[in-house]
């Protein structure tokens, strides 16, 4: 059947000497982690060329934010990186607070750190599970989701929602923690540590897993920096850069924690940096729980927020890397312009280069190891 062959070749007949196949990976594909599309030119099993296409989840969040009042924009931020909602809310709230010169009460800062770091663990657990799935291991995802589910149950107890919390408000948090929060945390923390250890023990040094991921999708530190990589992906290349250390915000200076750094910048290193980060995050949460004191959780009452005219840029360490929020205010109750620098987008920008000349199976591994969230890439 002529039609069949033409389709397989995907090229004009005169160019089809090399028998490359043009293959769409995504937007509907189990391993593109959302609606990401890659156009692969495949020679047998080898990817000769890869062309990423984004935009399938574009909702115009930045434009929408211009029509909302400041406290309403928080809900839009929730929906950018929908795996790490608290961290997004936090970055935006900090931007407005910086513009208004608001002092956030100490208790609110502690609450934000605890929830933000727990959200980092939840996000990395999700990554661990889905990365296992990309590599064909079906058990880690079940173990990882158990841990993530515990965290989300806590988030629900605190904010009333498993995701899209809308809990961090400008000037603090929406309301104080539930009365049984300490009891919940006492129960959660040992369980969570066990869950993380379980996933770590199961997958990190599995021979087949290491054979699949070590040395796959490597990138050197200079190239990574030039692409604007941040977060675990950059640290896996051996660059010790973490916004929490480089430009400490909130109360991070008060806690002792390490920044895990990898060596070779390949997929396994990216995975393992995240695994070690989970332990660090748990340690931060434990420290914060010990030193948290009482007091107010909101700097201002629920009144109309109207920052002075001006612009501001803040950055924060999200689970996926450095999120930047650039905010321009014209003095009204609605932001004039918001620009979000999403970490996933910058990390993803190198995908074509990374995937070139690897196997099709590696393409899935490399994309998985970047841990992108399309909601954030497309906004």
């Amino acid at each position: 059947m002529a039609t069949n062959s033409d389709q397989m070749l995907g090229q004009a007949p005169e160019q089809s000497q090399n028998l490359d196949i043009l293959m769409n990976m995504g937007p509907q594909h189990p391993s593109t982690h959302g609606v990401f599309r890659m156009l692969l030119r495949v020679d047998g099993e080898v990817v000769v060329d890869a062309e990423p296409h984004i935009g399938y989840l574009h909702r115009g969040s930045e434009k929408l934010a211009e029509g909302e009042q400041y406290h309403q924009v928080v809900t839009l931020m929730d929906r950018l990186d929908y795996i790490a909602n608290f961290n997004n809310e936090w970055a935006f709230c900090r931007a407005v607070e910086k513009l208004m010169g608001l002092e956030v009460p100490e208790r609110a800062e502690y609450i934000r750190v605890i929830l933000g770091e727990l959200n980092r663990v939840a996000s990395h657990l999700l990554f661990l599970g889905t990365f296992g799935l990309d590599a064909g291991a079906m058990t880690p995802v079940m173990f990882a989701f158990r841990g993530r589910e515990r965290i989300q149950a806590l988030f629900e107890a605190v904010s009333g929602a498993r995701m899209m919390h809308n809990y961090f408000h400008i000037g603090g948090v929406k309301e104080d923690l539930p009365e049984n929060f300490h009891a919940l945390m006492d129960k959660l923390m040992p369980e969570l540590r066990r869950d993380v250890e379980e996933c770590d023990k199961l997958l990190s040094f599995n021979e087949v897993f290491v054979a699949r991921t070590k040395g796959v999708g490597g990138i050197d530190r200079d190239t990574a920096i030039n692409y604007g990589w941040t977060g675990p992906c950059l640290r896996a290349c051996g660059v010790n850069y973490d916004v929490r250390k480089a430009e400490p915000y909130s109360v991070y200076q008060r806690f002792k924690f390490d920044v895990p750094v990898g060596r070779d910048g390949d997929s396994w290193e990216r995975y393992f940096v995240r695994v070690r980060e989970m332990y660090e995050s748990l340690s931060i949460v434990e420290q914060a729980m010990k030193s948290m004191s009482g007091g107010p959780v909101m700097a201002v009452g629920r009144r109309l927020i109207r920052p002075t005219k001006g612009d501001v840029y803040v950055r924060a360490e999200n689970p996926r890397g450095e999120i930047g929020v650039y905010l321009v205010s014209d003095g009204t109750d609605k932001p004039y312009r918001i620009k979000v620098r999403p970490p996933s987008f910058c990390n993803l920008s190198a995908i074509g280069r990374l995937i070139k000349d690897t196997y099709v199976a590696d393409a899935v591994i490399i994309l998985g190891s970047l841990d992108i969230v399309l909601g954030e890439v497309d906004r």
Partner: protein
Amino acid sequence: MSEVLLLALALLIMFTALSVVVLSLVWIERKFLGRLQRRLGPTRVGPFGLLQPVADAIKLVTKEDLVPSQSDRLIFWIAPLLVLVPSFMVWVTIPAARDLVVQNLDLGLFVIIALLVVSILGLLLAGWGSANKYGALGGLRAAAQLVSYEVPLIMVVVAVAVLAGSLDLRAVSASQVPLDTAQDVLNEINAAGGVFNHEGIPFAVLFPLGLVLFLLAGLAEVGRIPFDIYFAESEIVGGPFVEYSGAHWSVFFLAEYMNTFLIAALASLLFLGGWYGPLLPEWVWFLIKTYFMVLVIFWIRGTFPRLRIDQLMSFGWKGMIPLSFAGVVMTSVYRFYDWPWWSMSLMSVATLAVAGYWLYRQFTLPVIKLARSYGREPGRAPSAR
């Protein structure tokens, strides 16, 4: 005429029994994997979720059967049959007990191996006929993988045939049990003019190398993790099956589970002494051994990630095939010089040890080094600070 009717009846019973087996396998796999992953598995439909596979089957059969507009319709329709029919046909000659077999053949093992190969064609055609690039890639992967792993599988079967001196599955099983238990089969075969060697020891003890190679090659043959490369869900989204839906897909599904059961049954017949065992009826012993092997296969599935195609191929051609040839040489030497049985076990275990050490050097040692470079031990959580 009555013979034909009898045969037809036997085939009908076989077909029904196999369908029940597949349903049970689906339930066992989901339940067993669930337990491995600390969940419950199906619980809603029927007691312990026992009717879940039935519900799944009904859903599959009543689903719309889509045929892609660009597909080659004839090939698209024939491919599932090419996969299903051989996997049913092999069961004609597999004895579930001494007399519980539709038609015992003197060259039973040969027939089984010959029929197994046909399914490759089915997968390749399914991939091509569905006019889908994932499908084409999957079909080609299937061809490469199955042809590669066919070789060690056949070589192990050859080695077993050398040990038993027969390709008759009843003789192979009878060869592995004490003489007084196997006397009737022995007499029967001798009376028919056939011959076979009597070892009196399960081949799993005599030839453990064979069992390991057979299981690995068998896993690759039925495409189970870590060798599920040709339908790798996270890469090529089901490979040859990607465009199939409804009843057509369920045919592939049926064949896959029957092949899993076939590999388990062959492992128990060739290496674990088949249906022989104390006290319980013969067919119960056969089922116990076979389901045990099935559980081993499911256990592996719950534990390992998937290999990459080049890793799979080099593992097959550089590891499995030389080892399986070594197995044939070993069994032939053992049989020719008529050495004592433990010499065969010794040779086999020694080869396994060497192969294991090579694997350890090749894969485990680098991982241990990697872990230690980060101050960790594989399989252990980091020590608390």
